[in-house]
Structures are given as structure tokens and as C-alpha cells.
């Protein structure tokens, strides 16, 4: 099986460790991973801020880069970017049609919509594994990010993967399904409310006594982590992929 | 142009993008029904008539109605006891209430007249009525203004309402089944427990403007 890693611009620029972890994890599971170097950004920030027309060229570029038959699947370690492709690309196509621009855009985007998977979906649904042979001797609490939870419907998948990790003690997070307050440009446009939501999320994480708050989306973790260091919290943010990549032989510190 | 024509014109222009808006629903409503697709349940779970009555009792009690059971011949005695226990000196009875229901009652009977003022009703201690249908899944009584239920205000202004439900005949499982039994042209009041409010901190408290005490008699064997 050959997959294209759709890393996302945020991970590429700021969180390369997550990218390396996905590569390591998938390789360990016998998957051939490629990183199409021409990839940039899926256009989510543009779209969600109201710049749909400026998101369209990015979507077309995405489709050109990833939509080839060379890949069996497109895998991304981000619930929100995954949801952008899966949920919002079709909507962009529909809107273009409704605006009298035909179904060219919808057709162009269709191939990537059909084979884009968020990482935990790919592991559980496509590869059929929940025990990925990981080892991570820490107390962990899991925050389901909104787009993964509600747009993609990831459900129990991330938790099943975490429960199978050797040495990992999973503790439940109070108010887990409440948004952390990131929300893309919301974090700056409504920074007071966003910060209040972030502080509540961090307090909840702290109340669990966990060492690590795990999520499957670094955008949210950037906001939560930035709040954690500001509030001098003992909990650390770690992307799920990095936990799953960690093994007894090569532990994640 | 009248505002009526203005608004209807705006509606039609607003729907210009909708392909079949102009055609409208078929006269017999079949196109509408096909579009709606009522894939939901007519009732939730299968129950015997006895179980349905039990569920009604349970749900009525859950919302703080006081539930009593009796056989038809025990009703006059029970009603007399309930009104006495309440200390009711006056009891209002709708015109078509079976006369024998209140035969053992000591309280003075008050007749409701079209000319009765709300202030007169406010001085009545208790009211006894029948009902049109009761809904088990929601713990609801529906009154439709029939002769044994009377005008809507008589079950509203007095502070104590005793409602007699003939079981199992008047009990249905669900809201869809209840609507099917009701006549929309009648004034209908759906009652689920005594009056209540969630307006203080979104927590439910019983007892605001309607009767603060609702007693329900589930009468069998009539």
C-alpha cells in the first residue's frame, strides 16, 4: 500500500516531529509513505474566514498534487484539515455549481475527497489495526478535537488506539468534547473568549493528574500548549501520532 | 400594494432558485408526505395495554403529579377522600361530568357558567374533570373541552386539579398516536404535571401560575 502524507502546512512548518512520527509509524506497519513535495495548504483558514474564492486555487493545487493514481490513500495527522478536504471540498464544488460555474471544480476535487483519511481512520478502518505496537509509559488524557469529533466522526478510534499502547495509562478528560477555543482565526478575532476556553481546557487537563494531553491535531495543541506554558501547567501537549510512533526500542522522550 | 401581496411576492421571488417551487404540493398532500419521509417510530417499544398504563403512571409521577389507581365503583369514594384531604370547601365540576363521580363529596359544588368571571374561578378550591386522551411516553393528559372537561380556564385558575383517566381505553403510548385521536378544531390543552418553571438557573421547580397540585386518577373497569 502506498500513501501520500498530507502533512498540513502547520505541521510542516512548526511540528515536523509529528510528520516524522507518522512516517515512522506507517513504515513500521508496512505502508509505503511518500511526501509529495509540492504540497502546501488545503485552504482551510481561507475558507473558514470567508475567503472561499481564495481557497479554491489552493484546493485545485491540492488536488493536482494528491489526486494521482500513484497513491492508494492520502493520510493526514489533522482532523480539521482532513475535514476540510472531505467535508468542505465537496461543498466548495456545490457552491461553484450553484454560482453557475458548472461542476468543473467538484469533478476536479472528487478524487482527493474519496481517498483522504485522518490518521486514526486510516489505521483503524483501512489497515484494521488498533494495537500498533506502541510503548509510552505515561499518564495521558485525550482531547477529541472538534472537527475530528463532529465533522469526521472519529468516535472511539483514537481511544482504541491509545488503550492498546503498552505502558500508557489513559485517564478521561472532564468536558472532553468541549472546544479548546482555537478555531483558526477565531483565536485572534475573539481572543478573549478563545483564551477563556483554552484556560478551562487546560484546567480540566490539569485536574486529571495526567503528564500528557494528547490530541490528533496540532493546531489545537498549539493553542492549548501555548496556554499551558503561559499558565505554567505541568501537563504537556503531545500529538497522538508521536505516542503511537513511540516504541520500547525507540521511545519518545 | 397590500402588505399581504408584498410579502407573498417577496416569498415567490426568494424561491426563484428552487426548481419546483411554482408547482406546489399536490392537492391531496401525497407529494408532501413523500418528501417528508416519516421514518420515525409511531411509538417507542412494544407494550401491553397494562404496561402502557404503568408507564403513564410512572411518567406522571416523575413530573410530580400525584397518581391514584381505582376501579370504577371506587371512584366516588376516592374523589371524596382526595377533596377532603385537601380541605376543599368548593369543587368545580364541568357540566358533563358523570354526576355519580361526586356523589360522596362533601364540598360545595360550583357550576361553571359562560358568565363566570376569572375572579369567581379563583375562589374555587378544586376542580375535577375527565380527559380526552393520555400519553404514556410523556406522562401527558390532553383535555379537549368536552362536556366532562369543561372550559380551559376551569383547569387553570383553581390551585388543585383532579383528572380522571379511564384506563386503558383513554391511554395511548405516544404523541403521534395521541394526535391521531384528537380533533384539531377543539381547544386543546396538553398537561404534563403541575405548572413548573426552569427560569431560575435552568433548574425545574414546580408550581407557578397553573394548578400547583395535579392529582390523576387512573380508573379501570368502567
Amino acid at each position, binding site marked *: 500500500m502506498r500513501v501520500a502524507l498530507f502533512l498540513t502546512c502547520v505541521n510542516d512548518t512548526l511540528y515536523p516531529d509529528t510528520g516524522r512520527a507518522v512516517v515512522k509509524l506507517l513504515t513500521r506497519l508496512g505502508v509505503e509513505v511518500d511526501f509529495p513535495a509540492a504540497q502546501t495548504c488545503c485552504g482551510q483558514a481561507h475558507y*473558514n474566514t470567508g475567503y472561499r474564492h481564495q481557497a479554491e*486555487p489552493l484546493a485545485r493545487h491540492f488536488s493536482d498534487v494528491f489526486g494521482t493514481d500513484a497513491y492508494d490513500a492520502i493520510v493526514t495527522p489533522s482532523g480539521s484539515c482532513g475535514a476540510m478536504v472531505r467535508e468542505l471540498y465537496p461543498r466548495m464544488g456545490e457552491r461553484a455549481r*450553484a454560482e453557475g460555474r458548472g461542476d468543473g471544480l467538484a469533478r476536479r476535487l472528487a478524487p482527493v475527497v474519496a481517498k483522504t483519511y485522518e490518521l486514526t481512520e486510516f489505521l483503524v478502518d483501512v489497515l484494521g489495526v488498533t494495537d500498533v505496537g506502541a510503548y509510552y509509559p505515561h499518564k495521558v488524557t485525550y482531547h477529541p478535537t*472538534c472537527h475530528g469529533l463532529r465533522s469526521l466522526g472519529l468516535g472511539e478510534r483514537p481511544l482504541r488506539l491509545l488503550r492498546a499502547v503498552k505502558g500508557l495509562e489513559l485517564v478521561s478528560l472532564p468536558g472532553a468534547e468541549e472546544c479548546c477555543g482555537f478555531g483558526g482565526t477565531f483565536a485572534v478575532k475573539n481572543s478573549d473568549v478563545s483564551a477563556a476556553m483554552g484556560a478551562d481546557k487546560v484546567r480540566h487537563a490539569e485536574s486529571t493528574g495526567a503528564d500528557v494531553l494528547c490530541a490528533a491535531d496540532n493546531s489545537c495543541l498549539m493553542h492549548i500548549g501555548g496556554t499551558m506554558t503561559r499558565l505554567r501547567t505541568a501537563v504537556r501537549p503531545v500529538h497522538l501520532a508521536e505516542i503511537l510512533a513511540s516504541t520500547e526500542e525507540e521511545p519518545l522522550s | 400594494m397590500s402588505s399581504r401581496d408584498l410579502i407573498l411576492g417577496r416569498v415567490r421571488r426568494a424561491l426563484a432558485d428552487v426548481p419546483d417551487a411554482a408547482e406546489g404540493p399536490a392537492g391531496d398532500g401525497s407529494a408532501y408526505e413523500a418528501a417528508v419521509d416519516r421514518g*420515525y417510530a409511531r411509538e417507542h417499544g412494544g407494550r401491553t395495554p397494562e404496561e402502557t398504563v404503568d408507564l403513564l403512571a410512572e411518567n406522571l409521577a416523575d413530573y410530580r403529579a400525584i397518581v391514584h389507581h381505582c376501579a370504577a365503583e371506587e371512584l366516588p369514594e376516592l374523589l371524596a377522600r382526595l377533596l377532603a384531604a385537601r380541605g376543599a370547601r368548593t369543587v368545580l365540576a364541568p357540566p358533563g361530568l358523570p354526576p355519580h363521580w361526586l356523589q360522596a363529596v362533601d364540598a360545595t359544588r360550583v357550576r361553571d357558567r359562560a358568565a363566570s368571571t*376569572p375572579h369567581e374561578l379563583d375562589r374555587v378550591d378544586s376542580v375535577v374533570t375527565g380527559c380526552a386522551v393520555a400519553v404514556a411516553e410523556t406522562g401527558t393528559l390532553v383535555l379537549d373541552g368536552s362536556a366532562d372537561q369543561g*372550559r380551559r380556564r376551569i383547569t387553570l385558575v383553581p390551585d388543585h386539579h383532579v383528572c380522571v383517566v379511564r384506563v386503558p381505553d383513554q391511554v395511548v403510548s405516544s404523541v403521534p398516536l395521541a394526535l391521531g385521536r384528537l380533533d*384539531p378544531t377543539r381547544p386543546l390543552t396538553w398537561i404534563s404535571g403541575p405548572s413548573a418553571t426552569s427560569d431560575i438557573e435552568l433548574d425545574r421547580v*414546580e408550581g407557578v401560575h397553573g394548578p400547583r397540585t395535579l392529582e390523576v386518577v387512573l380508573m379501570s373497569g368502567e
Partner: protein
Amino acid sequence: MSGGAFVGMPAFPPFPRAAHEAVRNTTLRANLRHATHTIRDKRARAVAELDDWAELREAGKRIKDETLRHLDRYLEQLEESVVRAGGTVHWAADAAEANRIVTELVRATGETEVVKVKSMATQEIGLNEALEAEGIHAYETDLAELIVQLGKDRPSHILVPAIHRNRGEIRDIFREEMGAWGRPAPDGLTDTPAELADAARLHLREKFLRAKVGVSGANFMVAETGTLVVVESEGNGRMCLTLPETLISVVGIEKVVPTWRDLEVFLQTLPRSSTAERMNPYTSMWTGTSDAQTADGPRAFHLVLLDNGRTDTLADEVGRQALRCIRCSACLNVCPVYERAGGHAYGSVYPGPIGAILSPQLRGTGSEIDASLPYASSLCGACYEVCPVAIDIPEVLVHLRERVVQGGEVTRRGVKVTLKPARGHAAERAAMRAAGFVFARPGALRLGQRLASRTRRFHPRTLPGPGRAWSAARDLPKVPAEPFRDWWERTRGGAAQGSGRQEVSGK
């Protein structure tokens, strides 16, 4: 703001500015948190009791969509049915016209006071203020509305307008204000909810018993029968709907449903979504007027059908789904933004997620507050998840953001107009364009990433200027030594020889 809509409403500050104050108000935060969390869990339990919830939700959505797509027909049918049953139907294109109609109807009765059932439509049009200006006193009879009216306050929630008040504050308002409006609060009134409810009962009873005119809204209007439905809890609705001689109901045109049978869906979904009850304590259904013989309820019934921006909303093919709303307020109760900003920040009688998509459509996006509302959301989607008629609120929010920043064609007061892009978004637009330029060119992206990595030791963890909005509460992430793409290029994924180990573990 469009002409006569929302008369009497002051200009509200944009959402972020209002929220800035609200998040610092610890009493408000505690009140909202307590109330919304209480109802949130209960709603989930009430919904879980019905195993066909998804089907009910879908049917509710379809009923509303089918109604909207033939709205003209159903309104005509409704009018015919109401008239046949003895009622009179009036049509009001905007708030001013609706207020004028109601004022004239009350005047014609010779009365100078009316009792009111809680109604969003009459709040939306500012009816109480309009009546007051004509010397007619409108008494709110819903407990929460009473608290708001006595406290000279603004409503902050659709279902519980005084949700921002806790029991202690309510007791103080009752003690201080009831006397000026009628029967004073009982001596020694405490803050227990039962006592507070009892005080409201005593205070309002004299008003109910003498009322000659009632004013209401309606939750549903059935086209085929002409039946109106009011769903309530306290019995104040029943009082207003049955004791007065004249009843005036002001109802938005989108509240019509085609058939009697349609109620079987909404009478299951509304109470559970709203107060988290299997059924609310009281639901009243009436068709036209009562005759002299039975004398059961008002002898005169007037229905005022209200547009006030609804047809403009209907003209927007993405935004029109907001008209499915049955005003349950489940979206408010689950919204993390509402919980922290409070209802007043939304500058409208419709707060919360539904307000953020309804107000800018009913009123247009011309004012500061209305242009800011589409951004008052992190797009978390909790509102859509609980909506009993499946309004995709995030979808409409994003659509309205587009309208704000890009402008385009909209309908205002029935006329198509082209909006210019809103001012105040110029810098953002430029940034988005620049980002678009970079993202269209992987080479440019790489250049930027490398530049960031090389200068990373000089990066501050907080930002000056507009970036303060981020770094006031959060540290910036550290920029890594190299972006992923450089690592990949250097090592071909490190995995070519299975030697990605140092790379991966080198955190």
C-alpha cells in the same frame, strides 16, 4: 440595520468588545456555566430516551424545508383556515407595521394594558416599547421575562431570558421592583426558587384575572387547520390565551407547518431539546375563536403574520436553513462561546449560535455588531449536533463571513442589492491574498519556512501589535530547526533504509 427593523434598539458594540467585558465578569460566568451545564446533561438524557431521534430530526428538517419551498402556498392556506375558524389575519412587512397593527387593535378594545406570553417575535419588533409610547402597558408574564422587565434589563437567552441572573439577584430585583408594578414581593422573600416562583404567582395573578387583551407569539401554526400552538411551562401562557376577550398573536411567517400530523415530530423534539423534558407542562392549541355558547377563550382572535427580514433570509440559498429554527435554544446551551460571552454580547434578542446566523440575515450585515456576529464562533459544531432541525450553523456562519469580507448579492427588504466588502477587513484580505500567493508556490513556502527556522533563536514568545491578540494569553510555538520538508528531502523520509530512528526520537 434595515429601516424599521428592531426599532428602539441602541447601537451595540461589536461582539469581541462586548465579550471582552463579559469574560471578566465572574458572576456572569458562574451563572451561565451553572445553568448551561445543568441543562446540557439533562438534554442529552432526554434525547437518548428516543431511539429514533435521528429520524425525528431528519423529518423535522424536511417538514421545515418543504414548508419553506412552498411558503407562499402554505401561508395562503393558513390564512384561509384561520379566517374560516373566525380569526382575522394581518400581514406585517416589517417591525414598524406589526407594531402599528397591534397598537391599533389594542386601542380598538379601549384597553390600556395587555398581558403577554413570552414571544421572540414581539421582542424582535420591540412591541412593548412601541405600545408604551402609545400609552399602553404591556406586562410580561413569563417568569424570566418578568425578571428582565422588572430589572430594566435585556434578555440574554431565548428560552430563559434571565439566565444571566442567579437566584440571589432575582430575589433582589423582586424585592426592589415588584411594588412599583403591582403587588409587592412578600416580606422576608428568600432566594429559594420555589419562593421566587410563588412571588411571581402572587404578583401576576391580579393582572391575569383582570386582563382583557392578551398578546402572544406561537411555536407552530398549522396551515390545513388554522390551529396555533403555544408550548410553555408555567401556565402564564394558558392565562393569556384563555382569559382575555381579545387575543393578538404575532408570529413569524416561517412558523407555519403544513399538516396537523407534523406536530407529532415537533412535540417530541422541542421539549426535549429545550427544557430537557419529555413534555413541557402545558401546551395550548386553539383554532380561531370561541363561540358565545361555550365561551371557552377569546371571542376575538387576530393573527399578525410577520416578515421583518424573513423573506430576505429565504432568498439566500445557504442561509435560508436558519428559518427552520424552532427556538428551542439547545444550541445556546451547548455553545462554549455563548457560555463565556453571555447573551448580551450578541446585541440581539436572538443570542448564541442561532442568533449569530439569524440577526445578520434578518437585519443585514451593515452594523458593527451584525458584521461581527458570523465570527463569534470557533466553528466547533456542537450547535449543529444538537439542533433538532439540523441547521448547519457552522456552514451558515462561514457563508456569512464570506458575505462580510467579499460582499456580493443579497436581498434587503425584498430587493436584490450588491454589497461591497466590509471595511475593516482590508489587512486580513491582504494577508489572505499573500498566503494564497505563497501556498500556490511550494518554493516560496519553503523559503519562508527556512527563513523562520534560521532566525528562530531571535523569535519572541509573545508578539507586539495585532499579534498581541494571540500572545496575550498564549505563548507562541517554537519554530523547529528545520521544516519537515527539508528533513524529508535530506533523508527521504529517513525510512529508506529503515533508519528514521534518531530523527523520530530526537525530540
